[in-house]
């Protein structure tokens, strides 16, 4: 296996005494669809939080490509390092239209002065149109994002993340509230984008995980409980006990 794009060493996140993440070692391989599952409160979202800089690790180190120490950087600097993240609850710009949302998300110089003189390039226009097609928001491109349905918002936010052309994509429950059809669409999209970047996904939908995961990490009480393929995960007794429960066991059996 090639060397990891992202490596966490002995990371602890402590919320006034409560360790949401506890001595976690964790690695993400390039161009892989890497799922993180685990009980509610296991620390999955917090894991994404420390990687993207929203929460600062109490101790431990987070290294990008073995070199860059992330925990020192601010959120926006981390983004420019090539890490983009989608939040658990859709967070988009209600008062901007769908297309505006994508426009400000897209990869470009984002410092003050290059922004003042920012101009549309045809290539940018093209990119955004492709993206609109891809996530099927073409029809609503001029609608206020605030007026989209929950599912549509999810798609928009995924699109915003992709517009940044990151090396590592962090998705927190991207298919929450999506119907079967859209789940599959999302899944295909993820496989597609994972061809040239790493995708780290937090998800609870086992069928979905099973279908698209290259590798699955199971978190429990802030630590890594198990790592491997979905089959291995489902066979693991502790994972079943703390997380999966009976139904999934059944369809593992048959």
């Amino acid at each position: 296996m090639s060397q990891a794009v992202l490596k966490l060493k002995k990371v602890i996140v402590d919320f006034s005494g409560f360790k949401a993440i506890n001595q976690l070692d964790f690695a993400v391989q390039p161009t892989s669809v890497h799922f993180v599952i685990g009980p509610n409160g296991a620390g999955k979202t917090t894991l994404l939080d420390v990687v993207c800089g929203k929460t600062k690790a109490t101790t431990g180190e987070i290294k990008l490509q073995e070199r860059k120490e992330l925990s020192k950087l601010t959120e926006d600097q981390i983004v420019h390092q090539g890490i983009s993240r989608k939040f658990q609850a859709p967070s988009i710009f209600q008062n901007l239209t769908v297309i505006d949302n994508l426009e400000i998300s897209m990869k470009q110089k984002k410092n003050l002065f290059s922004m003042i003189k920012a101009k549309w390039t045809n290539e940018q226009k093209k990119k955004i149109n492709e993206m609109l097609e891809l996530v099927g928001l073409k029809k609503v491109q001029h609608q206020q994002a605030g007026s989209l349905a929950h599912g549509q918002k999810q798609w928009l936010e995924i699109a915003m993340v992709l517009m940044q052309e990151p090396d590592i994509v962090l998705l927190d429950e991207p298919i929450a509230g999506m119907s079967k059809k859209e789940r599959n669409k999302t899944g295909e999209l993820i496989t597609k984008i994972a061809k040239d970047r790493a995708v780290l996904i937090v998800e609870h939908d086992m069928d979905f995980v099973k279908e698209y995961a290259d590798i699955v990490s199971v978190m429990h009480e802030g630590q890594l409980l198990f790592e491997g393929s979905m089959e291995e995960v489902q066979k693991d007794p502790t994972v079943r006990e703390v997380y999966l429960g009976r139904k999934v066991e059944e369809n593992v059996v048959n």
Partner: protein
Amino acid sequence: MLSIKGLEAGYEESMVIREIDMDVKENQVICVMGRNGVGKSTLLKTIIGILHPKKGSIHYQSEDITNARSSSRAQKGIGYVPQGREIFPKLTVYENLLIGLEAGNQKKVDEKIYDYFPILKDFAKRNGGDLSGGQQQQLAIARALVSNPSFLLLDEPTEGIQPNIVQEIQDVIVDIKNTSATSMILVEQNLDFVKSVADYLYVIDHGLVVYENPIDQVKDDEVYRYLSV
């Protein structure tokens, strides 16, 4: 118990649900499915009174509540679990539950709530806003249950919840159904889950009911056809 006639509602000029008729009987679990953005949440929001219908009527226990305030609907025994949790972030978990009691007439949180969702006891003193997504979802459900509502509106209650707890929620719903006369309208994306709890299924598309059947007559492929058009 709850009967909706010719309901039309939406946001400003945009009509989202049109001509919805629905009848929910005592102790019946109705399930609503539909693709994203067809108006499921809007329907529930209109029933609880966040949105006010442009047309049509809502009767609850043969009383017209079409124009009643949400609070009075809640007082009449309608419980609501919104999509996206809507926890009170700076109230502790316990206080969140106490607010849930406002609708009912009992004064303290029933122990069986903690049996359903143990973490709520462990985290009683933590701020609701600090909970994880799934924990918040559990809190939202518990908050609706504490007042023993006679009618429950559940908007995708299993969203973001770990599988084994999803099963528990499933059990909870069944349990409530068996132990009380409570009726429910349940918005859900997972057909298996629906079949295991519901009595009757509606599929909505573009704000209209396009398919309805008692659950035992529901054919998966028919449903999926509507869900994927």
